[in-house]
């Protein structure tokens, strides 16, 4: 995980960085797992908020590909373009789960 940008944004405060990462690890997988359900229930407002939140979190950790996908999905939902959202969420969660297992695999 590249923490260089996050460190700059947290004014070099290691304690704040560590707490940010802890929140990230606890919050992001839970938010990602909720995406398909929100889509299924057509809760577009909540879904847009979730994409919005994930986008910012990915950006802090320089996960720019994920951040860009979140930005596109948020924009689609906000514009009412929801026809292919379920498929795109399924693709994203698959990639994300793989990434997460590799990056944060428990020893």
């Amino acid at each position: 995980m590249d923490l260089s940008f996050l460190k700059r944004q947290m004014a070099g405060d290691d304690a704040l960085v560590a707490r940010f990462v802890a929140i990230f690890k606890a919050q992001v997988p839970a938010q990602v797992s909720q995406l398909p359900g929100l889509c299924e229930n057509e809760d577009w407002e909540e879904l847009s908020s979730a994409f919005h939140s994930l986008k910012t979190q990915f950006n802090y950790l320089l996960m720019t590909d994920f951040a860009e996908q979140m930005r596109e999905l948020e924009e689609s939902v906000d514009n009412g373009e929801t026809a292919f959202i379920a498929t795109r969420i399924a693709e994203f969660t698959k990639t994300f789960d793989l990434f997460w297992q590799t990056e944060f695999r428990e020893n």
Partner: protein
Amino acid sequence: MTSLLLIDDEVQYSELTKEYLEMKGCNVVLKHDGQAGLDAFKMNSFDLCVLDIKMPKKDGFTLAEEIKEINETTPIIFLTGQSLKEDKIKGLMLGADDYLTKPFSMEELYLRIKAILKRVKVQEKAIVIEQYQWGNSKFDLELRELTVAGEKIKLTSIESKLLKLFCEHQNKVLTREVAMMGIWGDEEHYRGYSLNVYVSKLRKFFKPDSSVEILNLHGEGYKLVSKQRVIS
């Protein structure tokens, strides 16, 4: 101490921002939705507000409009996950003083807050206030004259001092201690009864003007709330 209202729906991350600003010596009230933020703004006095734009219940733009209706001089900084030019323009048109795109640097946020407050203090010093004017009311300090809905009321020295204090704390809390010190130069317990009487008199004077209200903040003091403010 600088008093800040921070409103951000990212519950856990915004705690980090709050703690950083508190480490820098600010007093921060943190709320997580627009409505709770507005309620906090009505009940307290803040030097500056930091508002997220995309929030549940009430977005940052709507909230900024409502804050400006209560106190048009309170500086506002918007935080947003978007970097859309239209959003920046909309924010600035609503009277925002600055704009930060997430992910933002904590230090940059703090420095911008400091810069805005420095600018505000300079502006306040440059204004010599002799008259206060609201919707249908006008207070001439030199003449000790209050005009409400066209009717002129000659104020006593104490009424005038109290109203001046309210004007100086408009849309902010005027504590009982500050009021008593400002009027009588001491905080003797028995002054409290007199203060209640003078506040009631001012309320009565303002009765014909619905745009002005003196709120009773239990255990704190009073707040003069006006939807419009013009200083000349």
